[in-house]
């Protein structure tokens, strides 16, 4: 089909709206309630256009493109109309900063928003850097409001896990309601009340948790204002790096985009496929787990009765020296299958070739992510890459090396502790629940001087004068194993189990209880396994 938009003759696609057709051809039409992953709604009226032969100003998002249509998107009448519509929206949205004559100087001297409770303007808004309302107000040169603004004076809602809501900023575009319905079939939230009292909320005044929210965070991702916010990420502002990688917190291996701050710290993660939700772990747990205060940041060696931080060469020399007497059956290396293929390959080679031991123990986590194992009989020295072995057995060892991301009771009694990079801090290849290869890409820096597992063990092997461990990168290890093509799992027909019911989420990663590291998880309804534990099952 052919149609004319702003004097350009364009080819339209079947089923496409006038707005979609215009945007596809780089014709900018202001729009607000429309979102690429949602069907048209026609709520905000920002995308009004003029179409020959049609009365009034149809909303281009809800008007199907048709053969021979003649559309105008930028006339004086449309600009006036859009400005009036946006003014009406801004009357109910804290907008003083957009009307301020000191904006330029203010932005220059205090570019970051103050970390306020309730937001009263752009300078106290978590969404300041990426706000769609703000962008539109600037595009349309709004400098005054026709009548004084109205502040709804609603309380800041911050009693649910992970999500803060300041509905005083809400413009009722309904994206959150629609994405919830589109992704889950049934929306937890909806428009409540009528007229000027309309707000987004749950039925019967319940909280998100009580209303059965799945905490997939998709509502936050589509919100054009600062109304819905990720409590952890909200004050970091616009991220400076976006990396597509695989979430390895469960076997579903969802493709996620990890946002990193200017300091290269993980700030937020969200699903790549906007049609299927991801689970609470993928959406909210990754940054908080990675940035936890208890992360191991530097190698430590026991000197006297205390662990002391040392530089990598000293730590590796200490491990090499102490491990040498245990070459043979007395040594075991324990990891679980949340390690990358590259890590596990190096672990195996190290155990067999350098330590000449058959005791390479690779645990398969159970459905809750719990990895526990004993140690083979006769083992007197072990390298543990997570919290896998009972403390009593660990204490009975003559030599314990812990290579992990968090301090544990076991690491407290280790001879040497080596800090490992994990999750979005490492690149490599991972095998998901369907035995497919999934890529991991480094999205952020590890804390302190922590390094990827394969690298630590390779450097250790070199320190023990072993040959063939001088890999340049994880990719070099992958090439040796002959890893084929790994592709992100973006398309999927089904919703991951934990994304449709958070009680199916995993509780552990690498032997660590996730709820101990990620505050919001403690507030969520119990998982099946913890419910069982509570009744002594």
């Amino acid at each position: 089909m052919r149609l004319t938009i702003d004097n350009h003759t364009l080819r339209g696609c079947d089923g496409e709206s006038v707005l979609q057709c215009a945007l596809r051809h780089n014709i900018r039409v202001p729009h607000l309630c429309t979102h690429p992953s949602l069907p048209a709604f026609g709520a905000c009226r920002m995308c009004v256009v003029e179409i020959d032969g049609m009365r009034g100003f149809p909303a281009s998002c809800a008007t199907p493109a048709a053969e021979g249509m003649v559309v105008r998107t930028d006339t004086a009448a449309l600009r006036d109309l859009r400005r009036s519509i946006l003014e009406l929206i801004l009357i109910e949205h804290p907008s003083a900063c957009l009307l301020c004559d000191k904006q330029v100087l203010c932005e220059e001297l205090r570019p970051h928003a103050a970390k306020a409770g309730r937001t009263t303007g752009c300078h106290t808004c978590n969404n300041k850097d990426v706000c769609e309302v703000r962008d539109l107000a600037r595009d349309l040169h709004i400098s005054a409001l026709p009548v004084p603004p109205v502040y709804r004076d609603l309380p800041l809602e911050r009693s649910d896990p992970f999500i803060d809501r300041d509905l005083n900023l809400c413009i009722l575009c309904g994206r959150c309601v629609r994405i919830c319905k589109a992704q889950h079939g049934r929306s937890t939230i909806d428009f409540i009340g009528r007229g000027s009292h309309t707000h987004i909320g749950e039925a019967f005044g319940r909280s998100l948790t009580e209303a059965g929210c799945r905490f997939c965070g998709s509502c936050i991702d589509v919100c054009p204002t600062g109304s819905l916010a990720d409590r952890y990420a909200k004050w970091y502002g616009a991220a400076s790096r976006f990396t597509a990688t695989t979430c390895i917190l469960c076997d579903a291996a969802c493709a996620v985009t990890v946002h990193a701050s200017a300091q290269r710290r993980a700030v937020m993660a969200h699903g790549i496929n906007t049609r299927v939700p991801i689970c609470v772990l993928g959406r909210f747990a990754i940054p908080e787990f990675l940035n936890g205060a208890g992360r191991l940041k530097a190698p430590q060696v026991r000197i006297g009765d205390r662990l002391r931080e040392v530089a990598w060469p000293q730590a590796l020399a200490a491990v090499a020296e102490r491990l040498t007497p245990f070459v043979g059956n007395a040594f075991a290396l324990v990891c679980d299958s949340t390690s990358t293929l590259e890590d596990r390959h190096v672990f195996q080679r190290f155990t067999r070739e350098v330590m000449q031991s058959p005791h390479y123990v690779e645990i398969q986590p159970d459905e809750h992510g719990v990895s526990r194992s004993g140690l083979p009989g006769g083992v007197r020295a072990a390298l543990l890459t997570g919290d896998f072995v009972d403390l009593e057995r660990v204490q009975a060892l003559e030599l314990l090396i812990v290579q992990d991301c968090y301090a544990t009771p076991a690491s407290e009694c280790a001879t040497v502790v080596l800090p490992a990079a994990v999750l979005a801090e490492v690149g490599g290849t991972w095998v998901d629940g369907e035995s497919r290869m999934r890529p991991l890409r480094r999205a952020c820096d590890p804390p302190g001087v922590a390094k990827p597992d394969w690298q630590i063990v390779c450097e250790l092997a070199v320190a023990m004068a072993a040959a063939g461990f001088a890999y340049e990168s994880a990719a070099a290890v992958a090439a040796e194993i002959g890893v084929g093509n790994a592709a992100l799992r973006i398309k999927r027909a089904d919703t991951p189990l934990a994304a449709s019911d958070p009680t199916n989420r995993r509780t552990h990663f690498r032997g660590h209880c996730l709820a101990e590291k990620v505050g919001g998880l403690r507030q969520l309804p119990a998982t099946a396994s913890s419910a069982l534990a509570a009744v002594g099952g």
Partner: protein
Amino acid sequence: MFEICAKREVAPNVHELVIRAPAIARKARPGQFAILMVDDKSERVPYTLCDWDREAGTITLVVQEVGQSSRKLVLLKAGDHVAHLAGPLGVPLEIEAFGTVALAAGCYGIGAILNIARAMKAAGNRVLSIVEADSHYLHYYRAELAAVSDELIQTTTDGSQGAKGHSADVIKHKLERGEQLHRVIAVGCPFMMMLTGNATKPFGVKTLAALNPIMLDGTGMCGACRVTVSSQTQFACVDGPYFDAHEIDWAELFDRKAAYSDEEIQAVARTEAVAARQQPQQRRPA
């Protein structure tokens, strides 16, 4: 431990706390501040003494939630206690009969000028309280300030109440019209105080600004609150908080205040959900 006797949200995100602290109330003088620790592990934060009642033994603070420490503080309720309060600190403001005194204030400063206006008026000055806010619903203390000022002028950034603009615009306009201001005192965020100083400088009107750098001990020992005034290093805690607004190195103050912005964000990021019953009580719509 110091008991919070009363607490209310006077404007969105602006909280008024009345705290029992008889020793501070007995000695407090206009322009001074107190350092508060919410709990025994909390940061030490300076807050301006907005008002005090020597008989009741209470002080009044106006606190905006803008980070982890103020967040903890505003989540407390009447009847709760704060761990520690040290004060009064800082050099009291010079109170004399100057003639006409303009008090420019924004944000928490609107609360902070209450006692200054009262003292300046009692000393025989004509007191103009010029208060700014982003919008009409962010103004507070109207009646309180009107009672102790000869004139209360309100401005809003969006023009929804009073003049459109900032208090600096009002002061500039007055000076341009030839009105005599003998002293200007600015209390608010550094940005607002800087604008006020810039407005009065061409007219040579003595202007004081209450500086609020990051502060630790408050007694001149640590030097965290250093500011540069007239090319000299000064400590805001013992040499201030009031300094000549025309001589302050504002750029350095902005830089120093932002020194820990990444750590501040991390501290807030790790906060957990607030129990529903712990939410600050709601301000009633006017």
